[in-house]
């Protein structure tokens, strides 16, 4: 059971606005991933793009690993255009995972950051107060499924095209910080673009709230060998692929 294996495309759907849901059927026995872990994926056969790309595990069903990603550059474009039956290279599961929520919890997803939290709410269904934000309605995906898995779903868009108007971090922090909030004291799990996580930090830090964030950095190896993917921790650099991708908010210098 190696964490380096080949897998076959078993499904590929383009959801709205450039977001692709890719399912893989591993060619070998594989290690079961935990929510928050990630995989390095790559189409085979050419040195451009050269490096594998990291993607969070989105879901595991019937021995299929699935990933939800936004088409941004070369590699995601190639991955999104693979046909059923084509074979790719996979390394994973990698990195740490979201710590188990002892109770109900708050989940905050910005854009395609939803990919990493989906597996968490699937595992701990009906326990998440889920805040899901995006610039606009078109970037929101799988609302039905998320709403059935979450205890409560709050949608926030910057252009007010769906749900509340504003940014998701404010909506979430406001909800937590109102006096006697039911959310007060619950652990928070967040994934999204860096500015969003920064904003969340500035709203929640010093309030005694346990907050876990899943970070992104450019990666080469994904296994801790190259030291390429570091973020600034309190005393030293931390590897996102090894000590992360999930960090307690107060481990990081924002």
């Amino acid at each position, binding site marked *: 059971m190696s964490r380096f294996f080949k897998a076959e495309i078993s499904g590929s759907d383009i959801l709205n606005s450039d977001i692709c849901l890719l399912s893989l059927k591993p060619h070998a026995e594989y290690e079961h991933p935990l929510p928050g872990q990630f995989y390095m994926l790559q189409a085979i056969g050419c040195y*451009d793009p050269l490096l594998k790309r990291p993607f969070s595990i989105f879901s595991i069903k019937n021995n299929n690993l699935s990933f939800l990603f936004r088409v941004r550059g070369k590699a995601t474009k190639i991955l999104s255009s693979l046909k059923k039956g084509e074979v790719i290279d996979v390394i994973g599961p990698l990195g740490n995972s979201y710590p188990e929520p002892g109770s109900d919890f708050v989940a905050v997803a910005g854009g395609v950051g939803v990919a990493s939290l989906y597996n968490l709410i699937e595992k701990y269904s009906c326990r998440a107060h889920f805040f899901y934000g995006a610039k606009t309605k078109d970037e929101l995906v799988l609302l039905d499924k998320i709403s059935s898995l979450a205890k409560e779903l709050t949608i926030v868009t910057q252009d007010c095209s769906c749900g509340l108007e504003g940014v998701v971090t404010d909506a979430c922090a406001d909800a937590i910080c109102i006096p006697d909030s039911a959310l007060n004291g619950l652990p928070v799990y967040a994934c999204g673009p860096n500015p969003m996580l920064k904003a969340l930090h500035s709203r929640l830090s010093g309030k005694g709230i346990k907050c876990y964030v899943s970070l992104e*950095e*450019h990666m*080469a190896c994904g*296994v801790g060998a190259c030291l390429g993917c570091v973020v600034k921790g309190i005393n*030293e650099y931390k590897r996102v692929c090894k000590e992360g991708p999930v960090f307690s908010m107060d481990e990081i210098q924002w």
Partner: protein
Amino acid sequence: MVNLSVKIGRLELPNPVMTASGTFGYGQEYSEFFDIERLGAIVVKGLSYVPKQGNPPPRIAETPAGMLNAIGLQNIGVDRFIAEKLPHLRTLDLKVIANFFGDSIVEYVKAAEALTDSGGVHALEMNISCPNKQAGWIVFGTNPDAMREVVTAVRKATDLPLIVKLSPNVTDIGMMAKVAEDCGADAVSLINTITGMCIDTKTRRSKIANVTGGLSGPAIRPIAVRMVWEVNKSVMIPIIGMGGIMTAQDALEFIIAGASAVSVGTANFINPVAAIEIISGIESYLLEHGIADINEIIGSLKT
């Protein structure tokens, strides 16, 4: 059966394939993907006498068929390496080559001495692609006089096989290799990364925080093979070749050009079992071509 074992000075390797410094950690990360005792040798992440934090992120960027890195030589330092990493490596049937560097000649010598005394290190590889902070930031590896000074000092400080790792950012790499040989190096290894940069046109900033980085990967392979060939013409000591080796065919290009052994770097990231596939690919090549001993084809380029 073919013979794959080669000699780097008095260091005997079971086969010519090692892993390049900085791309394989201290061996732990890749141990789960294959039995690292099958390697010709392991070259560990560059060590300095004093631990180093390294550069701020982003540290890497991808380029066509290559990557830039500016890790900034982050490492745990020689002492922690000896205390925490070496004990495990000592238990393995594996040649351990310690890659090291310094900010000054004194630091080079201190690191070399400590690594020599540690027991369990089979050879030293000195990375000279670093500036001398005490002498006007001249990069040791691009100035023959600075290089002569530092290699001579390290040579006096160790009786382990000494490999000098050459910088490709020079006009005449054959001449630089000759300097290393003259100063008593047992071997040279090449190439280290080539300095490069790439720019995010949106922000008009470099894509890596350090502005410039080192280019590695298949993109640089033709340059590396040429340099190995040039060095082969200028020195008698063995050569360890590297730069964009992804497959056994690539490794054989270096060997035919003059390398007695090769290092696999960036390829590990793309294919965690690359080094092992390269060893067996070299073996198949020899069998196919009826060559009994790898040593027969070292430097055998027909021109």
